[in-house]
């Protein structure tokens, strides 16, 4: 790890000026940042330990204006196992529990989960070029090891994926990210929080330097409670990043027709991927394979493989259909307790 100065902040007002220091980074769980520092991928001159902000209420999870408010410092495990999250946002709970390991979920904060960086092997290997790590050096992934990498929203510069499971559910559930900086605070719709690589793949999100995530809010999602599913396809059954993941939620009429649908994908792009036109096209149709396949085709419009990840085009289509079919059959509220298995 690079040498750095270490500061602790007791409250938000104390943290903000420390974070305004050039290159300073907040550290909460540290599960990704410290790993990146060990690998030499990131070398912030100053870390600001924001864990004491738990005492200032930044770890609170509570019902809020008919929806949910998740403190940025609430841990992933605490969030996933929270009674309100489990009963009213089972999709979010399932997505969180599909990610990482119990130890990492105990450590990782909700705010930090959003700021995870890609696990592209070239990004992590400082001996190789990488436009995300060192702008202008090139992207060996396009013609290299890209089994894990993106098929949608890529650029000439970068085909990295965002690694989070939690963020896929937050995108499907229309979350909002609340941030503060020295002089101001603002609310960022989840769709606008992460960005596509374009010609600046070094910038993962629209969070500005010096801004601190304070909390995440979710609107009411009662109509999706009974029909949601998170499907994660990966190279081993547990503790692996997604090749493709799908967060799906349906609001079904008594006659089985679709009143509303939400579909977001992980493992396929630089940000959670959602095509709202594909969701609105489902409205009024009978829930079933034909409608789900049509939605999958719309969502994957423009997708392309880079060799090793060509299989993701078919896998993503099948995963979307499977997730919607699973959601249609009914939410498995025990999901996350066990690794696999749909409701019997």
């Amino acid at each position, binding site marked *: *790890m690079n040498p750095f100065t270490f500061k602790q902040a007791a409250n938000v007002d104390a943290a903000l000026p420390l974070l305004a220091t050039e290159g300073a980074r907040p550290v909460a769980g540290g599960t990704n940042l410290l790993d990146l*520092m060990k690998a030499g991928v990131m070398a912030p001159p100053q870390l600001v330990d924001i864990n004491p902000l738990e005492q200032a209420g930044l770890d609170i999870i509570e019902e809020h204006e008919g929806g949910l408010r998740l403190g940025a410092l609430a841990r992933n495990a605490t969030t996933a196992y929270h009674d309100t999250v489990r009963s009213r946002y089972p999709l979010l709970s399932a997505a969180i529990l599909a990610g990482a390991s*119990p*130890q990492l979920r105990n450590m990782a904060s909700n705010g930090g989960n959003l700021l995870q960086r890609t696990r592209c092997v070239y990004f992590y290997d400082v001996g190789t070029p990488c436009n995300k790590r060192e702008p202008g050096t090139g992207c060996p992934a396009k013609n290299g090891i890209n089994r894990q990498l993106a098929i949608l929203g890529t650029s000439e510069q970068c085909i990295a994926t965002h690694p989070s499971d939690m963020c896929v559910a937050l995108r499907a559930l229309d979350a909002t990210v609340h941030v503060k900086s020295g002089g101001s605070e603002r609310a960022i719709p989840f769709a606008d929080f992460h960005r596509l690589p374009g010609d600046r793949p070094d910038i993962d999100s629209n969070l500005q330097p010096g801004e601190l995530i304070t909390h995440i809010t979710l609107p009411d999602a009662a109509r999706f409670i009974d029909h949601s599913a998170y499907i994660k396809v990966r190279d081993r059954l547990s503790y692996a990043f997604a090749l493709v993941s799908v967060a799906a939620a349906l609001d079904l009429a008594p006659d089985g027709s679709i009143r509303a649908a939400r579909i977001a994908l992980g493992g396929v792009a630089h940000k959670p991927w959602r095509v709202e036109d594909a969701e609105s096209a489902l409205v009024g149709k009978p829930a079933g394979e034909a409608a789900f396949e049509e939605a999958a085709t719309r969502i994957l419009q423009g997708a392309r493989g880079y060799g090793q990840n060509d299989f993701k085009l078919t896998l993503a289509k099948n995963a979307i259909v499977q997730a919607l079919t699973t959601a249609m059959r009914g939410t498995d509220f025990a999901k996350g307790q*066990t690794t696999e298995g749909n409701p019997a």
Partner: protein
Amino acid sequence: MDPYQQHPIRLRINDQDREFSVEPWVTLLDLLRERAGLTGTKKGCDHGQCGACTVLVDGKRVNSCLTLAVMQNGHEVTTIEGMAKGDALHPLQQAFIEQDAFQCGYCTPGQICSAAGLIAEGQAKTVDDVRELMSGNLCRCGAYPAIAQAVIQVMGIHKDKPGSASGSASASASASASGPDGFTTGPVLA
């Protein structure tokens, strides 16, 4: 002042108050092994991928390689050295012996601390839950079946007597296990 100052910290490690002066980049794992003389906690990958460094901080299992010692100032840490009480092994340690739940043993301290965290969390209700919630600990010898068996033995999960478990996370380690092939699923803890 030296910008990379030493930070005085105090940790309660295995029921003992310990004081250290550390550079900010010292991980909790390196502090335990190099400065506290507690080498039971193992450095496997040093990247949060293997779980060999698992310890309990304030009772919760964490990867000690991915947190800084200075971030844990004032907290309580339990390592494998703190599991036994005197000569009395922790029920998990006893169960690992009884189930032959290791070969080389390198992952074992992390496995046992992780299992202690798992039991305290109270989320695992079935054998499949135990396997899933132990997935943060890799065993390159492949002793997984026996490891899971040791954990379910301590939890009082019996594969052939669903529903018969006491539900007590501190069930005696002497409770006999049902055999090395005990991987059927079922709701077993009330």
